[in-house]
């Protein structure tokens, strides 16, 4: 939340100048596009006659109708309470997206046929690869952050080399390096562990920096109070510093988790049967690429939403000590 002032301002979307401006912009934008071939133009047929020959009048009428609907919608939503507003806007945006996907003429039976396998094999693999990588990355991040903040030369050098290297190389390269490079050294490694290792190391490097800045954001006084009571380093870190750093660490870490979930699709290049790999191969035989790719995209989105929800839960938990 931004700072909520206690003086109530008039709702922006109810100010005449705003409504008028919005109306004007929408009207102009939709007049600029030629909408005469769309379904909306068909709906307007009683007013404008044959859409393709309606010319400037047709364009204006279509733009005007859309602008009226749009502006009215915005003004009406302005009356609803906050929760309802959020719900309605989400729903409307979702409907627009579905309308967009409609235009692909996807074969629903095909999706329904392949979806169970896509989920039972693809989603499960994606989920466990990301989950394990996330755990390992977090452990690396804590260790890396402590090393980077320590005044031990070895620890600092190793940690800074590590973050520099793994943040600097493309993730795809890291996947190949580990899968194809490690066997050169005599470690034969399977595709799944190689993928997990690559993801953990890469994201551990990013998260090291997140954890480091989180730890640094805690006031020195907390260390002093803790140490002056006889707490050791590990105890101070675990009980005093990290719990306070978490509210700072969690939002960017949630970002990383969501990003990792999708980057786990990169391990498909070494033949791991995760979501993206299956989406591509299942659609290939019958050239129904779009069906599978859009299904996969939707599944990624749903998984990300789950992570977002978990993140906001955790954030709320840690917000307790901040409320007055």
């Amino acid at each position: 939340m931004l700072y909520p002032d206690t003086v109530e301002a008039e709702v922006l979307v109810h100010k005449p100048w705003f409504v008028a401006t919005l109306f004007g912009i929408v009207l102009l934008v939709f007049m600029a596009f030629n909408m005469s071939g769309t379904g909306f133009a068909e709906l307007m047929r009683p007013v404008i006659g044959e859409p393709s020959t309606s010319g400037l009048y047709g364009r204006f009428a279509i733009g005007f109708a859309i602008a009226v609907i749009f502006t009215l919608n915005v003004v009406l939503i302005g009356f609803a309470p906050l929760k309802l507003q959020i719900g309605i806007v989400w729903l409307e945006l979702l409907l627009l997206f579905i309308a967009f996907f409609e235009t692909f003429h996807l074969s629903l039976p095909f999706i329904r046929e392949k979806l169970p396998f896509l989920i039972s094999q693809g989603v499960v693999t994606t989920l466990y690869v990301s989950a394990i990588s996330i755990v390992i990355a977090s452990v690396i991040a804590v260790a890396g952050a402590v090393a980077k903040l320590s005044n031990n030369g070895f620890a600092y050098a190793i940690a800074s080399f590590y973050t520099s290297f793994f943040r600097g190389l493309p993730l795809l390269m890291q996947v190949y390096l580990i899968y194809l490079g490690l066997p050169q050294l005599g470690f034969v490694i399977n595709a799944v562990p190689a993928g997990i290792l690559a993801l953990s190391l890469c994201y551990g490097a990013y998260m090291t920096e997140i954890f480091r800045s989180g730890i640094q954001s805690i006031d020195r006084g907390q260390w002093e109070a803790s140490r002056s009571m006889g707490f050791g380093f590990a105890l101070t870190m675990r009980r005093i510093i990290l719990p306070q750093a978490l509210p700072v660490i969690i939002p960017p870490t949630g970002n990383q988790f969501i990003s990792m979930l999708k980057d786990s699709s990169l391990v498909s290049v070494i033949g791991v049967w995760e979501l993206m790999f299956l989406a591509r191969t299942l659609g290939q035989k019958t050239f129904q690429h779009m069906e599978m790719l859009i299904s996969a995209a939707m599944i990624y989105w749903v998984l990300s939403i789950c992570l977002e929800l978990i993140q906001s839960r955790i954030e709320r938990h840690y917000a307790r000590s901040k409320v007055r």
Partner: protein
Amino acid sequence: MSAEVIIEARAVSKWYGQFHALKDINLTVHKGERIVICGPSGSGKSTLIRCFNRLEAHQEGEIVVNGVALHGRMSNVAAVRSNVGMVFQHFNLFPHMTVLMNCMAGPMWVKGVPAAEARQTALQFLERVRIPEQANKFPVQLSGGQQQRVAIARSLCMKPDVMLFDEPTSALDPEMVSEVLDTMTGLARDGMTMVCVTHEMGFARAVADRVIFMDAGQIVEEGTPDAFFRNPRHDRTKVFLSQILKH
């Protein structure tokens, strides 16, 4: 004085880089003694008492606390610190824990006291600083004076042999100063060994056994409150006292 020695500083010197922050400090604190340290800003008062629990390192001389010499290679610094309570100017309560938990944390995690017993001790000391009803709030929900009293209770829960105070009232509004000073006076009455950095001269007069005046990293003058306030010997002390008592 024949009482047991709690803190002994002998010829202590400390540098921050080139800057000579403490110069040849000699000070002995006996059990049950109340010592007030005052002096102008930047004179090294904080630095000195932070050396007493090794939050700062001294480079020359010797500091012995409870019979243990403080130095860079010591392995039992935690044991020394757990017997030396410290109260900071800015309270430094743990904001993510309730007041009660702030007080229970030390005994439980450092001394391994069972939770039930730690809780009892915590409530007892919160009672003593007269805020038992705030036990389940978070620090941000308390006023400055209440927070500082929690900080005092938190230190007391460790059952320290000596309490160090670093300007405990200087971040507080005037009406909150007296509630904290009352708490500290109560502690002094009960015989707690205390070293207080403070500019509250009323408190020094009423409570202190000895007042120490520091300037530019040195102990300039030392004496009973009576002697110190009535006839300061040193010019710098006179200037300081005239400034601080002017208002």
